[in-house]
C-alpha cells in the first residue's frame, strides 16, 4: 500500500484544495498556507531514487519518481505557492485560492511524474486550473484572453499526448527519461514543451495572458507553467543543440519589446520570457555546470520574478493601474513596496550579493567554456538589457520619474510580508549561494564571487545604468506611451480572423451567385415548359375534329403506300 510518505507531494495541494470551498474565511486563510508547508515537508523527506510504480491496463505508471532534478523544482514550487498565497491573504475570492492550489499542486505532481502519461494528466491540469486566475479578473477582456490562453495551453497538452502515443508505439515505453528530437515522437513532445516554455513565435500567450490576470493571480501564474516546461525540457532534451539557439533568441528579442511596452506587468512578462531563454540555453549546452545553472536559475528566477510581480501587483491594487504612462513618484506613498521592488530588480539584473548573480553566471560560464562566442555575446547583451528594462525601467517609471500625483496607502501587511520574505530569500541566496548549490542536481564546483567576475558584472551593469541615464537626460529614451505593440498574437487575433472572414465572405458571395444562376436556369426551364405545355402552349392546344380525321386518313394513306411500294 502507498504510505503518506510516498505520496506525490503535489497531491497534498490538489486534494487539500477540495476542502477550501467548505471552510469559513478565517480558517481558510491559514489552511491554504498550511498546504504548501505540508507539501514542502513531504518533498524534504523524499529520497532521490524513490519510485512508485502502478500497473494500469498493462502499462506501468510512475506517479512518483524522485531524483535530484525533480527535487529542486519540488522545493521551489512549494515555496512559491506559499509566498503567492500569503500575498493573496486578503483575497476573499475562494475560486482564486482553489484554482491556485490545484494549479500549484498539478505543477508539483507533474515534476514528480515518472512517466509521460502521468505528466500529460498534470500538464493539462495546470492549463485548466490556471485559466481561472485570468478569468477571476471578471471582465470581458480577461474572459477572451483566458480563452486564447486555454486553447494554446490545451493544444500543448494534446500534442504531448500525441507524441507520447507515438513514442509508446515506437519504443514500447512511456518512461519520462531522455527523449531527444531524432524521432517524430520526440519532435512532437519537444513542440509541446516548447509551447509552454514560450519558445520564440510560440511565446505570445505569456505576454497576452499574464498581465490580464488578477493582482494575485499573475504572481501565481508567473511561477509554475513556464518553469514546469523548463524542467520537462531539462529531463527530456538536455544537450539538444537547437535549444542553445532557441534559448539565445529568447533572451534577446523580448527585451526590445520590454523597452517600449507601457503595461509594467507586461514588461515583466517579456523579461520572464528573456530569463527563460537563459535556462533553455543551459539545457541545450547540457553539461553538468550548465544543467546546474538552469536549475539554480529557475530557483532564483521564480523568487525574484514573483517579487517583481508582487510589487507591481501591489501598485495595481492600490492605484488601479499598472501603466508606466500613468505612474510615477509612488516611492512617496509606497516606500516599502519600492524597496522590495528594487531588491527584485537587483536580483533579476544579477547584481553581486543578489540571487540572479550566483545562478545566471553558471550558465554564462558554461557557454563560455564551450567557446560559443556568438551565444555568449547574445547572453551578455541580454544581461545588460534585462537590467535596462527590468532593473531600471520597472522601478523608475513606477516609483520615481515624474510624480503622478497618486497618494495611496502602502500595500496591505500581508503583501508586504510576502514581499519581505521573498526579498529575504533573494538576498540570502545571493549572499550564501551554498544553500542553493547544495540542492542542485550535480555536485557544484563553481565559485561565483571571484574578483574578475564581480568587477566585470558591475562594469556591465553600471555602464548600462549610465546608458539609461544619458538617454534619459538627453530625452532620447522613448517615453512611456499608451499603446499596444503588435506581437505574434496579431496573427491569430487580427490576421487569422481577417483571412477567415474574407474567405467566408468569398464563399458566401460565390454561393449566392451559384444559387442565383441555378435559380435563373430553373426559371428558364419552367418558362420553356410553360411555353409549350401551358394554357397557351402549342402542345396543349385542343385540335378540331375534322383535322383529326384528316390526319388519321393521311396516316392510313401513308401506311398503305408503304405496303404497296414495299413489296
Amino acid at each position, binding site marked *: 500500500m502507498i504510505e503518506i510518505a510516498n505520496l506525490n507531494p503535489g497531491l497534498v495541494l490538489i486534494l487539500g484544495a477540495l476542502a477550501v470551498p467548505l471552510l469559513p474565511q478565517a480558517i481558510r486563510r491559514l489552511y491554504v498556507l498550511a498546504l504548501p508547508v505540508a507539501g514542502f515537508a513531504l518533498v524534504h523527506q523524499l529520497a532521490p531514487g524513490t519510485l512508485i510504480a502502478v500497473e494500469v491496463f498493462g502499462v506501468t505508471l510512475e506517479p512518483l519518481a524522485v531524483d535530484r532534478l525533480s527535487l529542486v523544482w519540488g522545493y521551489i514550487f512549494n515555496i512559491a505557492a506559499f509566498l503567492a498565497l500569503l500575498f493573496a491573504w486578503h483575497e476573499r475570492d475562494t475560486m482564486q485560492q482553489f484554482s491556485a492550489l490545484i494549479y500549484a499542486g498539478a505543477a508539483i505532481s507533474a515534476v514528480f511524474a515518472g512517466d509521460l502519461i502521468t505528466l500529460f494528466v498534470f500538464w493539462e491540469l495546470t492549463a485548466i486550473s490556471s485559466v481561472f486566475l485570468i478569468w477571476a479578473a471578471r471582465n*470581458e477582456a480577461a474572459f477572451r484572453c483566458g480563452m486564447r490562453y486555454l486553447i494554446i495551453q490545451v493544444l500543448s497538452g494534446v500534442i504531448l499526448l500525441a507524441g507520447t502515443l507515438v513514442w509508446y508505439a515506437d519504443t514500447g515505453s512511456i518512461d519520462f527519461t531522455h527523449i531527444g528530437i531524432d524521432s517524430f515522437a520526440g519532435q512532437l513532445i519537444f513542440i509541446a514543451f516548447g509551447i509552454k516554455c514560450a519558445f520564440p513565435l510560440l511565446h505570445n500567450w505569456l505576454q497576452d495572458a499574464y498581465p490580464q490576470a488578477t493582482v494575485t493571480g499573475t504572481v501565481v501564474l508567473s511561477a509554475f507553467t513556464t518553469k514546469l516546461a523548463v524542467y520537462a525540457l531539462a529531463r527530456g532534451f538536455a544537450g539538444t543543440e537547437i535549444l542553445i539557439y532557441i534559448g539565445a533568441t529568447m533572451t534577446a528579442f523580448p*527585451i*526590445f*519589446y520590454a*523597452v*517600449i511596452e*507601457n503595461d509594467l506587468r507586461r514588461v515583466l512578462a517579456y523579461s520572464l520570457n528573456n530569463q527563460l531563454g537563459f535556462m533553455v540555453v543551459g539545457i541545450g549546452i547540457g553539461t553538468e555546470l550548465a544543467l546546474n545553472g538552469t536549475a539554480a536559475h529557475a530557483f532564483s528566477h521564480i523568487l525574484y520574478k514573483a517579487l517583481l510581480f508582487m510589487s507591481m501587483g501591489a501598485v495595481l491594487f492600490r492605484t488601479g493601474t499598472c501603466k508606466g504612462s500613468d505612474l510615477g513618484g509612488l*516611492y*512617496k*506613498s509606497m*516606500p*516599502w513596496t519600492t524597496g522590495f521592488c528594487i531588491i527584485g530588480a537587483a536580483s533579476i539584473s544579477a547584481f553581486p550579493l543578489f540571487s540572479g548573480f550566483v545562478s545566471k553566471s553558471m550558465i554564462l560560464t558554461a557557454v*563560455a*567554456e564551450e*567557446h560559443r*562566442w556568438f551565444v*555568449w555575446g547574445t547572453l*551578455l*547583451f541580454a544581461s*545588460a*538589457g534585462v537590467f*535596462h528594462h527590468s532593473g531600471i525601467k520597472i522601478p523608475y517609471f513606477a516609483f520615481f520619474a515624474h510624480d503622478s*500625483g497618486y*497618494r*495611496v*496607502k*502602502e500595500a496591505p501587511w500581508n503583501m508586504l510580508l510576502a514581499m519581505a520574505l521573498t526579498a529575504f530569500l533573494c538576498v540570502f541566496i545571493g549572499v550564501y549561494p551554498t544553500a542553493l548549490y547544495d540542492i542542485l542536481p550535480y555536485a557544484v564546483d563553481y565559485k561565483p564571487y*571571484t*574578483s*574578475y567576475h564581480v*568587477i*566585470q*558584472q*558591475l*562594469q*556591465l*551593469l*553600471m*555602464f*548600462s*545604468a*549610465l*546608458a*539609461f*541615464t*544619458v*538617454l534619459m*537626460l538627453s530625452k*532620447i*529614451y*522613448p517615453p512611456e*506611451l*499608451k*499603446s*499596444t*505593440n*503588435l*506581437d505574434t498574437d496579431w496573427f491569430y*487575433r*487580427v490576421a487569422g480572423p481577417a483571412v477567415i472572414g474574407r474567405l467566408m465572405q468569398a464563399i458566401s458571395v460565390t454561393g449566392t451567385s451559384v444559387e442565383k444562376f441555378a435559380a435563373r436556369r430553373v426559371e428558364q426551364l419552367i418558362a420553356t415548359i410553360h411555353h409549350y405545355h401551358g394554357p397557351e402552349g402549342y402542345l396543349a392546344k385542343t385540335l378540331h375534329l375534322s383535322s383529326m380525321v384528316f390526319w388519321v386518313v393521311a396516316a392510313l394513306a401513308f401506311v398503305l403506300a408503304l405496303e404497296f411500294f414495299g413489296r
Partner: protein
Amino acid sequence: MSEHQGQTSGTRKYWLDDPENVKKIVRALIAICVLLFIADGFYEKHSHFGIENLFGFYAFYGFIMCVGLVLAAKVMRVLLMRDEDYYDRDR
C-alpha cells in the same frame, strides 16, 4: 506608513524632489563608472574569449549595447505601435 493618504499633493518635501539631489545621484553614478573602468587594470582576468582582454570590454559592451537596444526599440515603435484599444475596437 500611510500618513499621506487622502492628500492630493504631498506637503512634505522629499530628498529626491530637489533637482540638485538628482544631479548628485547622476554624479555618483558617473564616479562609480569611472572607478570601475579604472579597476579594469587591477585584477587578473580569466577570459574565455580574446575580446574580454580588451581594456574595459564589459563597460563598453554594456553601454553600447544598451544604447543600441533603445535606438532599435524606438525604430520598432514606428512599425509595431498601435492605439491602446487596438484589439478592443471591433468587438
